[in-house]
């Protein structure tokens, strides 16, 4: 029996006014009751369009059916066949442009809230803290570089197939962007920690504080007996605009700002990490990272936080839900605005901007923003956060002979398997695509693991 209501069950959230002053998770999650009712909205279509929309191809109707039946652990097992980090995906995946985009219920009304139910299933599994099954070892060593979404997924998939997997991570904690980038109020670190612990219980070894390209090279990993290497080092190198004043005090890359707040825990009282407690903050950029930075700045006590974006709101790459949450919390959206200089003596005092108007569509298919002549104006700020994108880190490409990269520094892969120009070296995630999403990186990690498995079997 299906629940034929046209809209999703609302996600319970904290009150915007209250939540904008602390870092507790905004979305509270479905209860068992709501999750079952929402799962009943699934029509169990035979052609399963939602599965095609999922980068890791979770059997969505099957896990929803288990939820309807009250078999939450069974539902978890269905998800676990395809996904390594469901508690993370349930929170940060852009479902509206993936699985839910293809849901038949979305034709007339809203799609099934697949992501929210996935989160419910993953959270209840983590809460049970069952022992993880440890797959038997086949004695073949595989190396994974980078403990972010791509690397963790690849490692989990390889371990499930019996390989002895070691992940090498440059930072002092695993998680990559999940721990340094995405803030606590959107993805609690306890969730990431639990997912990582799950992998460790499965037998994945995580070596932190090892920088591949410096401490060890890719070639040395082969000398150590690893059969294949997966590179999932992300796109961590921050871009700046190249405008005057970007080195003034009070100008941050979003990476630095978010790393101080999240990884280095500047948001906690008594934290040893210094951070500027700015009153008026401008965040430049229109993606999820810009939303995260703006909402963090607000929670650190800023009185006014603006998003400055050179196109209009409909071109913003951020998830709609993130934009809505940011607006509810009082973030000011200054659209069709482009900074031309950061002003100040030593500390930032204001940011000089031009008004923009939309012209003809450009290569990205979005309307090209053009300057409105004579429209210069200043916004008073004491901090500016540049959230205009990142490039892949050069450490591996400059220390691995024969590893082909493109003009942006992204690693070139031969096909979907993630095989690079070097034998036995695979890559995936932002290191290949440039900055994209968590789930696409996970999909790439999974595909590469399958290819590494095939190659090992055929060698």
């Amino acid at each position, binding site marked *: 029996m299906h629940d034929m209501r046209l809209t999703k069950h609302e996600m319970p959230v904290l009150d915007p006014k209250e939540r904008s002053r602390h870092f507790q998770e905004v979305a509270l999650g479905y209860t068992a009751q709501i999750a079952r009712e929402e799962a009943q909205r699934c029509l169990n279509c035979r052609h399963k369009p939602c599965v095609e929309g999922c980068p890791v191809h979770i059997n969505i109707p099957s896990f929803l059916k288990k939820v309807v039946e009250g078999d939450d652990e069974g539902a978890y097992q269905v998800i676990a066949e395809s996904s390594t980090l469901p508690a993370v995906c349930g929170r940060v995946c852009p479902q509206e442009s993936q699985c839910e985009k293809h849901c038949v219920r979305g034709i007339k009304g809203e799609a099934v809230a697949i992501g929210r139910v996935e989160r419910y299933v993953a959270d209840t599994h983590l809460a049970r803290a069952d022992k993880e099954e440890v797959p038997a070892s086949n004695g073949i060593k595989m190396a994974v570089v980078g403990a972010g979404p791509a690397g963790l997924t690849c490692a989990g998939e390889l371990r499930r197939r019996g390989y002895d997997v070691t992940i090498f991570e440059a930072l002092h904690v695993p998680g990559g962007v999940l721990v340094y980038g995405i803030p606590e109020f959107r993805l609690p670190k306890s969730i990431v920690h639990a997912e990582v612990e799950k992998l460790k219980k499965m037998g994945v070894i995580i070596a932190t504080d090892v920088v591949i390209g410096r401490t060890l090279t890719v070639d040395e990993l082969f000398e150590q007996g690893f059969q294949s290497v997966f590179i999932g080092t992300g796109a961590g190198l921050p871009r700046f605009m190249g405008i005057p004043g970007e080195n003034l005090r009070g100008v941050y890359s979003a990476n630095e700002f978010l790393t101080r707040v999240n990884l280095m825990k500047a948001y906690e009282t008594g934290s040893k990490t*210094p951070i500027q407690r700015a009153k008026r903050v401008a965040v430049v950029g229109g993606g999820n990272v810009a939303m995260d930075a703006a909402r963090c700045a607000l929670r650190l006590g800023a009185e006014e936080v603006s998003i400055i974006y050179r196109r209009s709101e409909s071109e913003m790459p951020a998830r709609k839900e993130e934009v809505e949450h940011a607006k509810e919390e009082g973030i000011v959206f200054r659209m069709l605005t482009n900074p031309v200089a950061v002003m100040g003596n030593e500390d930032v005092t204001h940011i000089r901007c031009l008004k923009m108007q939309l012209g003809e569509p450009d290569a990205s298919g979005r309307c090209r923003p053009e300057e409105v002549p004579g429209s210069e104006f200043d916004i008073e700020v004491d901090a500016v956060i540049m959230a205009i994108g990142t490039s892949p880190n050069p*450490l591996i490409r400059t220390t691995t002979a024969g590893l082909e990269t493109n003009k942006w520094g992204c690693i070139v892969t031969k096909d979907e398997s993630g095989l690079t120009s070097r034998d036995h070296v695979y890559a995936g995630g932002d290191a290949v695509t440039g900055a994209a999403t968590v789930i696409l990186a996970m999909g790439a990690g999974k595909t590469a693991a399958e290819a590494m498995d095939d190659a090992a079997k055929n060698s």
Partner: protein
Amino acid sequence: MVRILEKQELNKQVFRVVLDTPLIAAKAKPGQFVIVRVDNDGERIPLTISDYDRKNGTISLVVQVVGASTHQFSCMQAGDFLQDVVGPLGKPSELEGIRSAAVIGGGVGCAIAYPIARELKEMGAKVDSVIGFRNADLVILEKEFEAVSEEMKLMTDDGSAGEKGLVTDALKALVDSGRTYDVVFAIGPLVMMKFVSLLTKRYEIPTVVSMNPIMIDGTGMCGGCRLTVGGKMKFACIDGPDFDGHLVDFDEMLMRGRMYAEQEKHAYEKACNLFKKEV
């Protein structure tokens, strides 16, 4: 976790530790640095490697107490464990082909300058060195520098050891006396490196400085360590830490270095327990 094998006070503010880090020791080269976290919620402190022993798998760091985290580090003893040590980071100093050099060290910077002087000497280069300190109590590595240098000048601000004056005075005297150098290495406080660079620019001697700005990850991720070199933005952690002293915008670096001065001072005072009342 990394074990501290030895610890030794060099003066009241500066101490030296030897760390059990086989992976880092196998790769370390002069000019590179590590990042240390003292405990589980510690800051990431960038520290230049002052020496390494590949056979025993150890590196040495010489650390000056400048804030809360280095103060906490200074309280640890041989046998204690540091939470994290990661490296070697940054590009090694380029020493190949150098036949003559002046190595200028200021304060704790001498600990980083010394391995460069020694390496150059071992490569067969002619080395002069100038080391400067505020006063006699702060002098470190005097004998070590003497052993690798043809000429060695010790300078102090107050004349309590060596000659009274600045390192630039001594360098100028050496050059004026006819000593010639392929390159000058200057490692120490920003102000010192700035004035050494201004001097050597007049004499047209290529000059390498080692930058140690505020940074978090040390792998190119945060961009906090950015500086302007020849009008271009560079990241000290992956493009450096060595840069052409004649191209570095030192005034901008000095300005950026004061970013968290207030908060750091506050944290340090708290750490030293100088404030008796609640802060």
